[in-house]
């Protein structure tokens, strides 16, 4: 295998296959996109329903849904880490991107809870949703993620002009467009390629 000769064309094919491999890995990891996408979507729409339709003063409590998602993510990532996978340049880039995003979400939550901008939190989160998905889409050259990221930024700017209640719906829309839909599209694309 080591002594086999291959042409520059074959070398490019190797690079292409690395890209495909990362897409495939990412598609396997779309689990995270889907879990967090759905959890956030349920959080946003749930809070909207509790606050506006059921008039419940305890509407922010819906966000406790995040805790089991965190536990599940940690458990799943530890389990996956044990499985040996080929590390590619793109998969390593994705790893640092999402570690960075995770820390940023945490820091942002601290900032928003301390500054008391309780009524204007969503535009900031939408901004970060866009950041993560746009860069991911560029890394793996998957257009729906790139478009999702751009749409999230448009919603991040537009939502500043909305009332808090409608900011929730803007966040739900951003999650749907930038996380959930692209994740399902990537999954079906990989399935059709591998079939």
């Amino acid at each position, binding site marked *: *295998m*080591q*002594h*086999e*000769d*291959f*042409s*520059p064309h*074959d*070398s490019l094919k*190797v*690079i292409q296959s690395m890209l495909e491999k990362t897409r495939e890995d990412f598609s396997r990891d779309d689990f995270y996109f889907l879990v967090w996408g759905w959890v956030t979507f349920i959080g946003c729409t749930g809070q909207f329903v509790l606050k506006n339709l059921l008039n419940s003063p305890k509407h922010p409590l819906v966000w406790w849904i995040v805790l089991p998602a965190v536990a599940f993510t940690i458990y799943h990532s530890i389990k996956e880490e044990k499985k040996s996978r080929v590390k590619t*340049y793109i998969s*390593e*880039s994705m*790893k*640092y*991107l999402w*570690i*960075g*995003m995770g*820390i*940023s979400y945490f*820091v*942002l939550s*601290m*900032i928003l809870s*301390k*500054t008391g*901008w309780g009524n*204007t939190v969503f*535009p*900031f989160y939408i*901004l970060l949703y*866009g*950041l993560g998905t*746009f*860069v991911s889409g*560029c*890394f793996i050259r998957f257009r729906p993620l790139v478009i999702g*990221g751009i749409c999230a*930024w448009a919603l*991040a*700017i537009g939502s*500043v002009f909305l009332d808090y209640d409608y900011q929730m719906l803007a966040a739900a829309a951003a999650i749907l467009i930038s996380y959930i839909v692209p994740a399902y599209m990537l999954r079906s694309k990989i399935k059709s390629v591998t079939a």
Partner: protein
Amino acid sequence: MNEEKDNPLSGEESLKLINEMIGKAKQSYVSKGIASIVWGVLIVVCSLLTWAQVQYKFELGFDVWLLVFIAVIPQIFFSIKEKKQKTFVGHDEITMRYVWTTFGICIFILSFYSYKVYGNNTASLFMMMYGVPTFITGGIFKFKPMILGGLICWGLSVGSLYTPLATDMLFMAACGLFAWLIPGIILWNKYKKNQACNV
């Protein structure tokens, strides 16, 4: 030329070629560290001037942060010039372009928020945002000073929640120093050393 084109490469040679491509890209973009130094100096200077204005109660008569936009012009000029001279763009460079373009867009949106809704008290948010591309760049290039720089930005962002505006500006200057200026100087020194070795 044709002969060279048609010659099949061994597996080892192909890997060498890929490594060389990565090396070239690193040398042209990251190793120089010029952009990092420019932005580091700019953030440190703007933050310290803002700090001095708050601390000593005087006004310069213009918004010092507008200097950031002035610095964008030579940045665009040099990147266009560099682009014209190049025959090859590495994957690293493309990756970095995505990360830093995204950072630029997010800083623009944050500035819009700051202007539109939240007033001047947004230093913590900017410091949080500084951490993102710095950490990712450091991670991708396995360059520890930038990983550390990103973590420092996030730490100072949280710290600034408990300090007055003047101190926030000192924190901001520290972000510029640790995230960009120091890593940029390290990269520049490495680049110069490499050049000296190649002569």
